[in-house]
């Protein structure tokens, strides 16, 4: 159990962060708070993906050190570089995150223009 805790703590950390964001998305009544929760939620998912790319001790940034590295040398050195694929995916996910953020904030401003408040309870009263 202790061993598994040691091996998996990183996954569980991301799950904890994600649940904080998830709870804020559902339970908070202020719309900006919901968007903050959304941001936390999505970046925790990105943290999970990044943690799949880690390769133990000694693995470093996936930028080939020797710009003239031969094919064979690269094959030998695979363990020295972390896994680049999740990084690529998460670059995409970060951009998607900020795009969603922009649209959500625009809609929140639109709501504030119509109802004069951002609180869900007050909006349902003023409808």
């Amino acid at each position, binding site marked *: 159990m202790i061993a598994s805790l040691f091996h998996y703590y990183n996954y569980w950390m991301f799950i904890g962060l994600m649940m904080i964001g998830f709870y804020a998305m559902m339970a908070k009544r202020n719309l900006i708070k919901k968007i903050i929760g959304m941001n936390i939620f999505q970046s925790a998912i990105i943290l999970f993906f990044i943690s799949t790319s880690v390769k133990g001790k000694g693995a470093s940034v996936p930028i080939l050190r020797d*710009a003239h590295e031969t094919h064979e040398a690269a094959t030998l050195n695979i363990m020295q570089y972390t896994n680049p694929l999740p990084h690529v995916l998460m670059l995409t996910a*970060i951009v998607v995150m900020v795009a969603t953020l922009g649209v959500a904030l*625009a809609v929140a401003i639109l709501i504030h223009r119509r109802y004069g408040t951002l609180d869900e309870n007050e909006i349902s009263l003023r409808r």
Partner: protein
Amino acid sequence: MIQKSDDVIVRTVARSLMPFILIYGLYVVMHGHYSPGGGFQGGVILAAGFVLLTVTQGIERTRQHMSQKTACVISSVGLLIYAGIGALCLILGGRYLDYGRLSQLLQVDQPTARSLGILGVEIGVALGVMAVMCIIFFSIFAADETE
């Protein structure tokens, strides 16, 4: 409406810092091959330069360099560069986004052609991201005024 900052130090320093921010953004875009960075990061840094210009010099001054309309055009052009490079590869007889085909056009070997293709794509991405970030920023910050 964003007025210009009333602190003369901030205003002047931000103004003279702006070209350096832009050149740093372009550096990040162009050196994505060798160091961390690339179109998105560079584009966002470029956009951050305009954000700095707006919050220090006021929105009127910024409009001389980047207005909502210009940003709209630039974003379309940036994305057209990306999609157009892909389509160019298609026209040259390869698969979509197969930059290796550009080697016939540029008279270089395949890996270099791919590297140049990546550079072109990154420039397109940077233009698009910069313009769109400016659009979002302007629309949110100028939300209560008429155009």
